């Protein structure tokens, strides 16, 4: 699915515009949606999923204008969505909950729903608890139920908001692999603050800031923003001034900093940038 967002604006009464004349084209495949808190990521996803309507502007999915109710309804048949905060009905089991979501996604055949639910629950590692009430599951398990429900109906467009929050490292890797597999033949929009997840899975990335498009393009391009500006300092006592500190590694001699800057402290060694460096370089440019 090819998504074209054209001069999109969303105003909420009494608040600054959540999206401000946003224009961006998103290709098929895995797309990372990143940006600071309040950048408008969740609003964009809610508009993409047809939950709220934009104040101005249009979205075209495979050329179909989403402002038409018929097109919106048609999109919803091929959509999987995982909201950031979701508490599935606690008195249903994961299997029953997925059956419910299957009904909502208009999968008519009960057997097909049940088979899909079984398969997905196995994929997210919940086969042992699929008949227990969701209320009794841990936070991470509930998140996995959320992930499984988003995949019901084999959606062609998958929108997931902070999917790996609360997952253990093993499950996070498993989910990342699953997403990468899914992204081969459909569009997956992954909104997250864990840049490592984006770096590992998304060949395309879109950075939002204050409701505007700050960058959209290949992930490599964003990484390249920090090329020639990423340094590792020698162990020093105090953090360097006027630089963007990416991380700090304590050593017996002092702390070694990874920084993004044009003017590194003496003795710093240039290093190959990663997505975090690129993102921070872009942030410091604004």
């Amino acid at each position, binding site marked *: 699915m090819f998504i074209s967002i054209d001069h999109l604006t969303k105003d909420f009464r009494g608040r600054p515009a959540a999206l401000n004349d946003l224009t961006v084209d998103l290709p098929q495949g895995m797309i990372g949606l990143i940006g600071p808190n309040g950048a408008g990521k969740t609003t964009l996803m809610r508009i993409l999923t047809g939950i709220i309507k934009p104040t101005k502007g249009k979205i075209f999915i495979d050329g179909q204008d989403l402002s038409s109710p018929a097109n919106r309804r048609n999109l919803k048949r091929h959509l999987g969505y995982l909201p950031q905060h979701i508490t599935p009905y606690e008195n249903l089991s994961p299997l029953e909950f997925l059956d419910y979501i299957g009904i909502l996604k208009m999968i008519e055949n009960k057997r097909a729903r049940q088979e899909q639910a079984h398969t997905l629950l196995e994929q997210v590692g919940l086969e042992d608890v699929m008949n227990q009430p969701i*209320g009794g599951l*841990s936070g991470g*398990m509930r998140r996995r139920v959320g992930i499984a429900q988003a995949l019901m109906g084999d959606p062609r467009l998958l929108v997931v908001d902070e999917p790996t929050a609360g997952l253990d490292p093993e499950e996070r890797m498993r989910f990342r692999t699953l997403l990468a597999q899914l992204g081969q033949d459909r569009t997956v929009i992954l909104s997250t603050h864990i840049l490592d997840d984006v770096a590992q899975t998304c060949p395309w990335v879109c950075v939002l800031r204050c409701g505007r498009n700050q960058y959209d393009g290949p992930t490599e391009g964003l990484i390249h923003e920090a090329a020639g500006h990423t340094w590792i300092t020698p162990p020093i006592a105090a953090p360097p001034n006027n630089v963007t500190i990416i991380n700090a590694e304590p050593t017996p001699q002092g702390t070694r900093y990874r920084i993004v800057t044009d003017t590194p402290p003496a003795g710093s060694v240039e290093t190959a940038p990663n997505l975090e460096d690129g993102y921070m370089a872009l942030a410091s440019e604004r």
Partner: protein
Amino acid sequence: MAFVGIQLKRLYRLALLPFILTAGILLAGFVLEGIWSLSRIRPVMMVLTQVPVIAAGLSTAFVLNDDPIVELTESTPTGWRKVQVTRLLIITGAFLAAAGLLFIGLHMMRLWPRDMGWVSIISPVGSIFIVNCLVFLIAVFTMSKPTSSLASMAIWLFLCFIWDPYITDPVRQRLIPLFIAAAGAIFGWNMCGDAERNVAKVAAL
């Protein structure tokens, strides 16, 4: 004191509600007194004087449920029980004070239904105390707002339609339910002290 202050700050709108209701009912009584005969006003007042009791139960069910920070509170030296009991006391105190004022106002206007003198004050004050104590127990037990609300209505229905019409002596009418309600509140207080139970009820373990 700071702890009570912060709870009061959170609940002040609800604590004002009984006084607004009291003012409304007194105003209605004052206005009706000028237009209707006493025999017509009394049935209206019988209904209106029940409103604070209903509101007290529903407000208590409202403030004692659905708090998102039970787990966090249990991790502090204050504990969840102290929070719940403080909220119960604030709401109950406000409704009791307002019920007292309502009784005094209507008693002086001779509009209080089944008025047997000042002893009749035990009727509204007792009802509120009974309903709130029992709603506290239910809220601690179920931690569910809809169930606590349903229970508050059931308790009020019992008092208003089953108990009060048959036990007419005001002291006997309130004394037995008051003892039962107090026992229920003590039981709830004990149950609410179990931190593990409180957290298990609201958080995924």
